[in-house]
């Protein structure tokens, strides 16, 4: 591939990877009360880097590529940023930055303490996790992707059990074990592919695969292993056993990152496999199976979310359902709008879900109760938080003009375009279920409190502002997508 790499773009791609990594290392070595400020500073710098990169890619309509150390594949490792990548990169950056800012006051050491364990872990591992996620987005090499996914998992697991409670520890262990299982399968598949062609670069492999009339058994097995492994990491039904306890049990900022960013990483790799490595696989049985599991996840996740009595498990199950939507991209890939719909859904869900979890965190901290039936009076005490919760909820539901709406619209369009009308059923039904659990919360929260003695809001303004920012970004994303008119081809 001969590409028009701009001078500034290459540096920015590398910076986007290195900045968070640097932040993590610095925060860990310096530690103490400074760790927090290092992480926050890293976030701000990274924000500038990613926005610049996105500006270059979108404004100049180019794909930025960089070969590490100047080595060409198959020997070297290639980094690549196209329009879709920078959109996800930007979304993740916004989520990360907003989460960090809203959590900046958490885990403060007491006056006589040097640092808190939880604080150090959070401010160190979060930038590291971020670096791993960016690597997943930018890598073009199957092994590099594996390494990045592993780092992501190893950063996420300690974050789950940040509060040190026994049940979150169990949840973290469960998460670790299942994620490792997925990794092992993925690695096996990657090994088989390396054995076939001696390279793991996606571009080169795609060339080789396009020459094949029919897949050799080793490739079939490899793809099966990798797909299943990655699906385990995205917690698609029936491989979702680890997600509800982990996402519901973790501290709210961590839950926000896990649901908004971490589960998306494996999905991005899946997209790489099925859209870049083997384009035109929409009508294969595997794609149909993925769609069926996605539909199942939409229904199962939605129903289970409706049946939760607490806020955070409800939001966690909602993630399972929303991941289901993403998997509908595979059987609908034949339509032009499917790819764009998937991308948009991924981003708008990330923003909205982060807002929901952060709002839930504030509700638990400042309202003192996250049982949904006990939320009466919330609208009076924390109106801004509830507003953000509502806007994010509307995006999940797919109310216009949110990003969730446009994504669903495009998905439905794809279903009609490909003639597979059946996929419209889970898409629409899932929206109904989502509306059910969002309105259930809103209905109770807007009721006057049983005991009017509740104090007015003590939620920090920065936190409220960040949650609102996330929710509104999800809405603005939809407006922007509508502004572009048609889904990207």
């Amino acid at each position: 591939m001969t590409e028009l790499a701009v001078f500034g773009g290459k540096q920015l791609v590398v910076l986007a990877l290195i900045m968070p990594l640097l932040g993590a290392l610095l925060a860990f070595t310096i530690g103490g009360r400074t760790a927090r400020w290092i992480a926050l500073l890293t976030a701000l710098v990274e924000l500038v880097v990613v926005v610049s990169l996105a500006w270059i890619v979108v404004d100049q309509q180019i794909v930025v590529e960089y070969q590490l150390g100047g080595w060409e594949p198959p020997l070297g490792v290639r980094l690549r940023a196209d329009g879709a990548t920078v959109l996800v990169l930007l979304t993740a950056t916004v989520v990360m930055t907003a989460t960090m800012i809203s959590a900046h006051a958490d885990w403060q050491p007491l006056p006589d303490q040097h640092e808190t364990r939880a604080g150090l872990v959070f401010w160190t591992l979060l930038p590291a996790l971020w670096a791993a996620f960016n690597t997943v987005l930018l890598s073009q090499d199957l092994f590099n992707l594996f390494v990045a996914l592993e780092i992501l998992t190893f950063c996420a697991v300690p974050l789950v059990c940040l509060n040190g409670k026994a049940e979150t520890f169990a949840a973290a262990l469960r998460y670790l074990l299942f994620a490792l299982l997925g990794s092992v399968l993925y690695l096996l598949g990657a090994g088989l592919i390396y054995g076939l062609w001696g390279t793991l670069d996606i571009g080169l492999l795609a060339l080789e695969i396009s020459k094949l009339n029919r897949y050799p058994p080793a490739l079939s097995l490899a793809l099966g292993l990798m797909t299943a492994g990655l699906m385990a990491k995205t917690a698609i039904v029936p491989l979702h056993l680890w997600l509800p306890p982990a996402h519901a049990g973790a501290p709210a900022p961590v839950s926000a990152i896990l649901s908004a960013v971490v589960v998306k990483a494996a999905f991005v790799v899946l997209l790489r496999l099925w859209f870049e490595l083997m384009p035109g696989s929409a009508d294969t049985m595997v794609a149909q199976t993925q769609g069926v599991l996605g539909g199942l996840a939409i229904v199962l996740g939605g129903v289970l979310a409706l049946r939760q009595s607490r806020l955070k498990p409800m939001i966690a199950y909602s993630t399972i359902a929303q991941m289901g939507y993403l998997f509908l991209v595979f059987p609908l890939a034949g339509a032009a709008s499917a790819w764009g719909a998937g991308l948009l859904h991924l981003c708008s869900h990330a923003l909205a879900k982060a807002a929901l979890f952060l709002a839930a965190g504030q509700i638990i901290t400042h309202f003192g109760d996250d049982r949904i039936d006990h939320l009466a009076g919330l609208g009076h005490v924390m109106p801004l938080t509830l507003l953000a919760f509502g806007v994010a909820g509307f995006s999940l539901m797919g109310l216009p003009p949110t990003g969730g709406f446009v994504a669903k619209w495009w998905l439905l369009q794809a279903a009609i375009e490909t003639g597979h009308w059946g996929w419209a059923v889970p898409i629409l039904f899932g929206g109904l279920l989502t509306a059910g659990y969002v309105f259930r919360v809103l209905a109770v929260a807007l009721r006057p409190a049983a005991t009017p003695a509740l104090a007015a809001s003590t939620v920090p303004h920065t936190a409220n502002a960040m949650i609102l920012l996330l929710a509104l970004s999800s809405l603005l994303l939809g407006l922007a997508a509508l502004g572009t008119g048609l889904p990207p081809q």
Partner: protein
Amino acid sequence: MTIQWLLPVALATPLVALLTALCSRLRPWLPNLLWLLPLPALVAAVLALHGIPLAFTLSGLSFALDQPGAMLLAAAALLWSLAGLAVPAVLDQPSATRLSLWWLPTLAGSLAVFGAADLLSFYLAYAIVGMSSWGLIGHADHIQARHAAGGYLIFALSGELCVLMACVLLAAPLSAQTGLSFDAVTAALPSSPWRHAAVGLLMLGLGIKIGLVPLHSWMPLAYSAAPPVAAAVIAGAASKAGIIGLIRLLPIAEGLMSTWGLMLAVLGLVTAFYGLLIGVKQRQPAAVLAYSSISQLGLTASLLGVGLMSAEPLSRAAAVFYAAHHLLVKGVLFLALALIMVSGARWRVLLGVTLLGLSLAGLPLTAGFLAKLGLKPILGDGTIGLLASLAAAGTTLLMLHFVRRLAATQPVSPTVLAPQAWLALGLLSLAALIVPWLLVPLSLGQPMRLALGLPVDQIPIWNVPWSLTRWIEFWQQLISAPGLGKALWQVLWPLLFGGLIALALWLPPLPPGDVLLLVERLGLRIVCRIGEQIQRLEHHLRAWPVAGLALLGLVLLFAVMLMG
């Protein structure tokens, strides 16, 4: 013909069985034999319908099976047999034996009345069935039964006296040469000087039997006091003695009695609606059925009244068909009540009962559709036709009310019934749904053919026998019948109307926002149940072995799919 012995044997069998009751050793066996005794009559009726003439005369009493008689006899024999099968199951041994002693003469009279071919034999059979019914009604040993039986006896005796007097008047103009055959009776009647007295008395006497308002009040009392299994045969078979009497003795083909015809038609319609109105206010299932019987028999009477008014011979065929259908259905409904009163309500039985009940209102595809269809050419599309349709709507309502009351029936101590009882109910239900469909190609099916716009024989004759080719031909014609759509709608709208009224009456008091709140109440419960199940399923899915196996399965599945 060598088969001629069959009819006397068929009619005599119950009486012979009654003789065995004299022997105390054999008596306890009687209840178990009840189902066997009507079978010869059934065979005779089937043969007669097939075109084999059966007749015999014994010391001036002549019996013969023509099509109307054979059809009613077949239906009655079926009901008696299957109800007899259920008797030992629903009653204890001594009680069943006691009942059998009245069961047998009633059976004998009830069968013979359809085979009677002259005035005398008719009256004889009519009197036997009327009198011995008393024993069945008063079977139970409590004050209500005694009261009801006493009331019945007064009414029945008065009625029989009227009929007797009418028979005498009818026979008066006849000579020894002409004999007392029905044809001779009706032929001589218009010119008889006593014709008004005769017809008046006849209608009075038979009117008591079929419960024409205001002579009906004995019926609900009697049917609720009798053991339901006995009520099944009384309401089903025995009451048809009145109908066959009207069919045989009214000079329908001759005309000239239009005033009486009008009176009968009006009285019948009044009765039909009266029965419906009072019936829906009843709480006892047996009383509901009794009022339904009053209503149905009233409608049949008004059918014959209109026939008499307009000298329409087809009205006889329609009435026979209608009566035969009612005979079977009412038998099923009472039998179901009998079984449920012992074993408790079961939804399968209730479902069947609903179907049969709606058959009475003319539900398409059921036999009742045919019966209702037969009314159309006689009653026409005018006021009377409309009233009959409204009566069908009322019947829908009444039958749904019956099912509701039946569902609420609680036996004092539920006991398990012998399977033969359920077998009897099932077979009888099937017969009620199917038998009329089998019989429609007979000459008796002329009114239905007329209603469907199918070709009819020029002169309605009773002796076009049943044959398979004619039956197949009927079906072929039916499917492409020009009047089928109209007929379906004519029969269907009263059902829908009645169903709507039932719905409106029985909806619980509704808050504003009706449907939404109903959905909340009913739907939410269902949805929650589904949600519970899904939650349980998800809990299993989250078990390690399941998730692990699923992961492994997906690997293999994808690999195989990609290889394929």
